[in-house]
């Protein structure tokens, strides 16, 4: 493939423009022309680099439902676009749309981008969408991102299922609502889940069985 062709195939086509209009049509009817055009620009940009543009429309609709100003909505949509791109880069290669969305949520509450990259490196084949959702909720509840990420990854390394991770997040939610300090709640609940998991393998285990 020539370099010129590589360069040229980055343009959104008339076909893509049709898809963009269909997306922008999902904006709430009360959105004015200026807002529609701004959101359309973001959708075009997201589509061109393969990001899930439906999330941008949803963000705009959230802002409309909350009676936010057009500037605030367009800023939020643009910021989400950037987060989606960062999430995709950190969760490379080939993250699913669910993972990109969950990664963007995690970045939104303040989880540093390198944590996403580390999780991907540790689990290249497991979907991180649900664990990232749990991490997001823990950080949203006031836990330091590093601490929350360490706990989630420790549990995952010990074989915790998504169901067990959800249970952890729900329990911490309830504890914090009841007045517990977030770190104390996490510590207690993580030990509870850990007690149900198989013990960690010994560090000096044989890599292969001996032949008889």
């Amino acid at each position, binding site marked *: 493939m020539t370099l010129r062709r590589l360069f040229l195939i980055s343009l959104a086509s008339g076909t893509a423009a049709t898809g963009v209009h269909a997306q922008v049509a999902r904006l709430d009817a009360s959105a004015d022309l200026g807002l529609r055009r701004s959101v359309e620009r973001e959708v075009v940009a997201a589509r061109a680099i393969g990001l899930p543009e439906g999330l941008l429309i949803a963000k705009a609709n959230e802002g409309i439902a909350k009676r936010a100003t057009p500037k605030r909505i367009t800023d*939020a949509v643009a910021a989400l676009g950037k987060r989606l791109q960062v999430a995709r880069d950190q969760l490379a290669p080939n993250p699913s749309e669910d993972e990109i969305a969950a990664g963007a949520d995690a970045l939104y509450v303040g989880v540093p981008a390198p944590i996403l990259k580390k999780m991907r490196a540790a689990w290249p084949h497991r979907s991180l969408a649900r664990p990232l959702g749990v991490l997001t909720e823990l950080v949203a509840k006031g836990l330091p991102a590093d601490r929350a990420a360490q706990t989630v990854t420790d549990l995952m390394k010990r074989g915790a299922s998504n169901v067990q991770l959800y249970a952890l997040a729900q329990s911490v939610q309830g504890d914090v609502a009841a007045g517990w300090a977030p770190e104390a709640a996490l510590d207690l609940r993580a030990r509870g889940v850990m007690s149900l998991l198989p013990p960690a393998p010994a560090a000096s285990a044989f890599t292969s069985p001996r032949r008889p």
Partner: protein
Amino acid sequence: MNEAPDELIDRAAAALRRRHAPNPRLVSRIMASVQSRPRRWWRAVSWPSAPFSLSATATLAAAGLLLGFLSREATNAVGHDQPVAAQPGAQAIPLIPAARASGEAMPVPVQFTLRDVRASQVTLVGDFNGWSQTATPLEPGTEPGTWSVTIPLSAGRHVYAFFVNGKWMTDPRAQTAPDLDFGRANSVLIVQAP
């Protein structure tokens, strides 16, 4: 003066915008070239002049931004008239939004309920229906002032709220999630896979 919309110019500009990608090589060259330059713009300030490290200042910067976010959330969160229970008001059937279709287990039915005697119209808005103000109306129950809807939701974390008589309202029985974009907290629900 507002310029009239021009689709051809917009498409041309969009094409030109997408042409470039981040260039880490250039960024490294720039940072290497400034590191050797004298800092002519040091100002006399009252805080300690100890030399800083990149990692320390980056951590401080990140912490400063995070504190800013958290304090903004605290001042903007919607207040609740009723105490927050451990269980959210939502219990049942989920909707699978197009953008979040799960490759995991089957969707879980989640029932959302609200009690408000002043409500004449209630809809559910959330990440599972694109925050559409009309897609998911709640139906009135037999007891006056009670409303509910049951929708399928994928397992995981979801944020939502009610739209009561055209006004935004968080679920009084659910936990809240900060809203850094618009300053109005959402309700949050974690749906367990069956």
